[in-house]
């Protein structure tokens, strides 16, 4: 059957649906600048009419749901890229502090090495001169101190990184319960439209988590499950599990999950980058320094033992002889207390400089791996420089990819003000038309009411 009142209810369904659509557009506009917000669209459907030969006249419109426009594959790519960006970025920012130690500035180890040989060169024109000998001792002291400072600064940087690791772990532990709480809320919300806002927030928090550490994401009906490096869960449904920052064997902060040390397995995110700098690159640099210090001190000492000092005594240790490679740089000290003890002579005569000439030849002698002292130093500078340059390029590339992914995400999920305004106009007109239908039905009803009087 059809009736005027049927038309009224059809018009009313139109008014309701357009109102809902206008509210959705208003919410989109209000959240234009909200991070992580995905624009929403109303899903309109014709209300099905049953029975009768006039069912095709229709029964109005129904607003079935409000949908968030989001590409989950893109979100996943963003998540992965955020992890690798976080890793490189943290690594670069730490290693930039280390590379300045290996330049060619005044006071850098390479320059002090050169200055030591230059002081001996000056002495070679008058091997008995005490002031020139003092010059050699001063240069040796400076060189030893450059070895120690460079190594100490690297160790201090490791300490700073450990503090940053602790902080990152705390941030992870703050995020995990928030995500778990959102999981629970989403699970309870049930209806798709109620969950949208919560899902937007959760996506944003998971992105923050990815920036911090290795984390893989799995969707289940309990919500998302986040697991870290070795499969230990951080978030499982409405439960969250904390990572622990524990002091490791050598005083550096280690990370453990469920009582298991997972430090070496954290390879992504900020934590991954920090740990790579602290546990791989810096120890490598320290070993390089130690090898140079050990090779250099040992070579110089063995030559120095073969000579005689100003008093005719056989030469002692010029640098305190390191017992082993490890720690040689940190323990480097010039051993001679008196300039007269420098063994420049080979024949015991006061003015002889034959042993000094042999010491001078160390400038071009292989002390580590067939490389002269300065070549060793420049090889270290080259290694850290090229590694960092490569990593800086990674950061730039990763930044670009992130930018592109974000643009692609915004192309799907971003709110366009023009689009919303156009929609607003469209729904406004439809609302006005539906309201007009109500007026028309009202007028027609009045006509029916007045039929008998006329």
């Amino acid at each position, binding site marked *: 059957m059809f009736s005027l009142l049927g038309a009224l209810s059809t018009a009313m369904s139109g008014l309701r649906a357009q109102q809902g659509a206008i509210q959705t557009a208003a919410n989109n506009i209000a959240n234009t600048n909200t991070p992580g917000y995905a624009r929403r669209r109303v899903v309109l459907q014709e209300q099905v009419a049953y029975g009768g030969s006039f069912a095709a006249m229709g029964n109005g419109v129904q607003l079935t749901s409000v949908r968030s426009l989001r590409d989950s594959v893109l979100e996943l790519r963003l998540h992965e890229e955020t992890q690798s960006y976080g890793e490189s970025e943290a690594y670069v920012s730490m290693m*930039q502090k280390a*590379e*300045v130690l*290996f*330049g*060619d500035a005044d006071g850098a180890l*390479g*320059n002090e*090495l*050169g*200055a030591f*040989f*230059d002081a001996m*060169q*000056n002495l*070679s*024109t*008058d*091997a*008995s*001169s005490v002031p020139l000998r003092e010059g050699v001792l001063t240069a040796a002291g400076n060189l030893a101190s450059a070895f120690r400072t460079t190594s100490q600064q690297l160790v201090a940087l490791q300490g700073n990184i450990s503090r940053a690791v602790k902080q990152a772990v705390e941030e992870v532990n703050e995020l995990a319960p928030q995500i778990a709480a959102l999981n629970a809320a989403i699970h309870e919300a049930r209806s798709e439209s109620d969950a949208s806002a919560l899902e937007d927030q959760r996506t944003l928090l998971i992105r923050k988590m990815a920036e911090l550490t290795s984390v893989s994401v799995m969707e289940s009906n309990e919500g998302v499950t986040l697991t870290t490096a070795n499969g230990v869960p951080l978030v499982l449904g409405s439960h969250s599990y904390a990572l622990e920052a524990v002091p490791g064997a050598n005083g550096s902060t280690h990370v453990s999950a469920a009582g298991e040390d997972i430090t070496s397995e954290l390879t992504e995110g900020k934590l991954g980058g920090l740990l790579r700098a602290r546990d791989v690159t810096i120890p490598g640099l320290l070993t390089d320094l130690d090898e140079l210090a050990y090779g250099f001190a040992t070579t110089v000492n063995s030559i120095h033992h073969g000579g005689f000092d100003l008093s005719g005594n056989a030469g002692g240790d010029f640098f305190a002889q390191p017992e082993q490679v490890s720690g040689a740089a940190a323990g480097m000290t010039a051993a001679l207390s008196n300039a007269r003890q420098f063994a420049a002579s080979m*024949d015991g*005569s*006061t*003015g*002889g*400089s*034959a042993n000094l000439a042999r010491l*001078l*030849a160390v*400038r071009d002698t292989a002390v580590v791996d067939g490389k002269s002292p*300065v*070549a060793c*130093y*420049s090889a270290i*500078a*080259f*290694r*850290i*420089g*090229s590694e*960092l*340059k490569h990593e*800086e390029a990674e950061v730039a590339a990763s*930044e670009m990819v992130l*930018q592109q992914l*974000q*643009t*692609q*995400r*915004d*192309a799907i999920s*971003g*709110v*366009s*003000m*023009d*689009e919303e*305004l156009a929609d607003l*106009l469209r729904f406004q007109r439809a609302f006005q038309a539906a309201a007009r239908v109500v007026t028309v039905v009202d007028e027609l009803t009045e006509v029916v009411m007045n039929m008998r009087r006329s």
Partner: protein
Amino acid sequence: MRVSPNQSAAMLSAIAQAQEQESRASLEISSGRRVSVPSDDPAAMALGIEIGSQLRADDAYLQSLGSVRALLSTADSALNSVVTDLQRAVTLGMQGASGSLSAEQRRAIAQEVRGIRDSVLGLANLSFRGTFVFAGTATATEPFVESSGVVLYQGNEGANEVSLGSTGSIQINLPGSRIFAAAGAHVFAALDGLAAALEVNDPDAISTATNSTRAALDHVTAERVFYGNGLRQLNAREQSLEGEKLQLSEQQSDLVGVDLADAVTRLLTARQAHDATLQVLAQTSGTSLLDYLR
């Protein structure tokens, strides 16, 4: 296809990039260096460190070269005086040998010869910056000491070398024994002999002693060539070291120094990109449907 409605994000990152390039170029210009830390250009930095070390070493070699030159020329001029003294002694010996002289005249000549011997002894004990030049490597020991009328050599037979870098090393001294106390050409023995022969008024002995003195003179003259040669070598090496230094500094400035034209061009390009992006940003964010809905 729907494009991202948030175009300003991309533009902000372009602006950040332009700013980074601007600050990088300004830093290069103000510091005068293209490479300040290893990661700027690892290969250039590594090579720069080695070249820098070589440059410093060359400076040290040049400084040594100056000291060696002072030492060699001091020794050379001392030996020049010794040669002059010995020439005078030979002349005196020839005068003394001529038959027309009286014993008293010969004694007068002998006295002058003794004076020459003392002067030569002083020259042989020459010290330079507090060390004895003709004592071999025993530079703290006075090399020639008179003991009961005989001059004895107290130094050693050692010689020192000073490295002058890639041009090799140079010997900087001759032991005094080789110059003044060589077998058959002992300077002090010859002079003492001549004086003694003059004092005893024996023309034949004077002749013999004069010949010995002449032999000593010839020997010292021959040995002195070592110092002259050394000084000539120093000049040649100084030139080659200066040349090497010039070449190395050019290479170093090519490697790590700033290419001013390039840096300024990059600064200007980045600034233009910055300006253009700002203009685009200002214009595009001005268009909105709102402007047309009245």
